[in-house]
């Protein structure tokens, strides 16, 4: 009996020795690398978009660390994620990133939203930090010649144009649209491009083409869009599009009932519909609302970290308890931004911010999120956007047609 135990111990010891030698021959444990992110955990974005972004970052870091971390120079480096709540205030985001620099944190994952990212980008530039922008889509961010900010997501110019392109393929196709736009740069830019696209597709923009910047313009993050809805009363648009974020879109759908300003076919919005909080806030009123989105799990894309888009969805929703039918796309944006930083550090083979910046600029990879390749301004401008519709409290991909899982319920408004 004792002999058997001794043999077992010897075998186990040998196995450990062999494993240790084997591990040593590939990579040893190197120092941890810190990714720092000023993410909204309270305030206007705290309940939804900021939370999703934070979960995306955490999921990316835990997934990479579970696979041994970032490997270069024969060593594996685990990632430490440092986050701080910016309270959904852009100026606070910038202050936090300055403090990160004082603490020696050079690799920045962006805050949620264009406002925060716009405030952070010059700070990153000044401090010699590098930022992977996961959720700041305003193209204005990329007109300043910054060299250290790289956005994985599609730019703001495509948020409303994607909705218009999808509407043009529907039956019946709308003849008129109205665009309510928040006053922030992202929403205004998206609306401007959307209005032009609508005209190009032969749709009438009500009450006028430039109304998004006057009568149907509302304060960013407001919970009262009555002035814009009253301006639309009597114009009877086929579709009302909200170019904004969660608060404005929820307010528009809610107050349209109060004011009797309902579109003939349905509502569409940027950012808000593909977020679980939109359905929570509106309940049945959310049914049929269309929303442009940065990512859908139906795309045929994969990588070695997260696997395929569908695997990412399954693993992410399992980890954070989301229903696979109500997944926050912002988390995929965030994970993709984090992944871009990981791949750039591996490619640079160093944690020197300048080398990582150069590696990011030359990144050309396929991921679960789609293709990531930055143009000279730092935008991932070739990535398309998609359209979902809320059907029976689930996000259903309806555009483009080759990715659609179900046909759109159209017209979406009950007669």
């Amino acid at each position, binding site marked *: 009996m004792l002999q058997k135990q001794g043999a077992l111990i010897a075998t186990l010891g040998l196995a450990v020795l062999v494993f240790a030698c084997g591990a040593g021959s590939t990579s040893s444990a190197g120092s941890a690398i810190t990714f720092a992110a000023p993410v909204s955990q309270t*305030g206007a974005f705290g309940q939804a978009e900021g939370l999703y972004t934070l979960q995306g970052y955490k999921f990316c870091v835990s997934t990479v660390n579970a696979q041994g971390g970032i490997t270069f120079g024969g060593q594996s480096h685990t990632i430490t994620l440092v986050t701080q709540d910016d309270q959904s205030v852009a100026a606070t985001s910038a202050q936090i990133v300055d403090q990160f620099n004082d603490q020696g944190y050079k690799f920045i994952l962006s805050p949620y939203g264009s406002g925060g990212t716009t405030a952070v980008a010059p700070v990153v530039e000044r401090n010699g930090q590098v930022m992977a922008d996961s959720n700041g889509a305003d193209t204005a961010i990329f007109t300043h010649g910054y060299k250290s900010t790289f956005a994985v997501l599609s730019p703001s110019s495509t948020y409303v144009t994607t909705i218009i392109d999808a509407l043009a393929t529907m039956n019946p196709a709308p003849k008129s649209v109205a665009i309510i736009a928040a006053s922030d740069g992202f929403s205004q830019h998206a609306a401007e491009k959307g209005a032009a696209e609508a005209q190009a597709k032969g749709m009438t923009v009500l009450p006028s083409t430039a109304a998004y910047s006057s009568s149907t313009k509302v304060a960013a993050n407001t919970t009262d869009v009555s002035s814009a809805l009253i301006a639309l009363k009597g114009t009877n648009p086929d579709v009302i599009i909200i170019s904004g974020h969660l608060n404005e879109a929820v307010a528009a759908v809610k107050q349209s009932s109060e004011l009797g300003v309902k579109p003939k076919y349905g509502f569409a919005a940027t950012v808000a519909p593909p977020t679980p909080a939109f359905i929570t806030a509106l309940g049945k009123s959310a049914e049929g609302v269309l929303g442009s989105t940065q990512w859908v799990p139906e795309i045929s894309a994969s990588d070695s970290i997260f696997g395929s888009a569908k695997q990412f969805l399954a693993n992410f929703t399992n980890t954070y308890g989301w229903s696979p039918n109500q997944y926050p796309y912002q988390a995929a944006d965030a994970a993709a931004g984090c992944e871009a930083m990981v791949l750039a550090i591996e490619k640079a083979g160093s944690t020197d911010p300048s080398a990582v910046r150069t590696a990011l600029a030359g990144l050309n990879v396929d991921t679960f999120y789609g293709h990531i390749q930055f143009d000279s301004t730092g935008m991932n401008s070739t990535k398309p956007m998609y359209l979902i519709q809320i059907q029976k409290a689930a996000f259903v991909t309806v555009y483009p047609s080759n990715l659609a899982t179900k046909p759109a319920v159209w017209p979406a408004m009950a007669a």
Partner: protein
Amino acid sequence: VSQFLQAAAYGLVQGGLLALVAVGFSLVWGILNVINLSHGALAVTGAYVAWLLNTHFGVDPFLAIPIVAVCLFAFGYAIQRGLINLVVNAPIFLTLLLTFGLSLVILNALQLAFTADDRSIETAYASQSFVIATVNIPYGRLAACLLAVLITGLLVVMMTRTRLGRAIGATGMDRGAARLMGIRARHVYALTFGIASALAGVAGAMIATVGSFNPTTTPTQLTFDAFVISVLGGLGNMYGALVGGLVLGVAESVGGLLLTGTWVNAIAMAVLIFTLIVKPSGLLGKAQYSGRVEV
């Protein structure tokens, strides 16, 4: 024309909600000569009480009003009796600082307890409306508006027909003389602040029903609205807050239609400045409040 009528109607019912926010603020300012910067925080506290009752016990926000009012009355009474009474004779800047600090404490406590997330109370009826001609009147805001009218009426009855109301009025006019008549000023002040807090709480419950609220941006906006409406309506008249609220609601709604929705605060200030130039005591204000005796 239809848009103008809709904006005016929506502004009127929205104005009623604003009046509900302002009536307590105006009462405290008129009687205690305290500009209560924690008024918005008290309103949001009321919103959370109603939200908790609705979320955990399914209590309809309108049925929750008595509970909210009692909770906030007790809270307000305690604050005035234990804190603000200590400095009520001090220069107005000290009471401003104290109520500002109080607001910060309340809001930070709310943020710790509930986070800064937006909340709202979902009901089947609040966002529905009925139509008169082409004008839609939303049920939720109309109910809040009628509540404001009812509460203002009750407040007038209380102030003019009851011993308590006359004691409050007398203390507001001349504290020294009121004391000589046997009125316990400290108790009357605490009652006044308690009533104002209860009204703020009820307003908060209504805001939670027809819209949404959070402990970061909502209180500031409510205190701002209450300040503008009180000055606009005039201190010392219970109807002042009601009229001020309705005027401001219509001005913001029609102004938002004619300009854009991003101009509402500028419109509010423009209306206030214009009124103060034309009638410095406010729309329904009484001159006696500027010459009252503080002993």
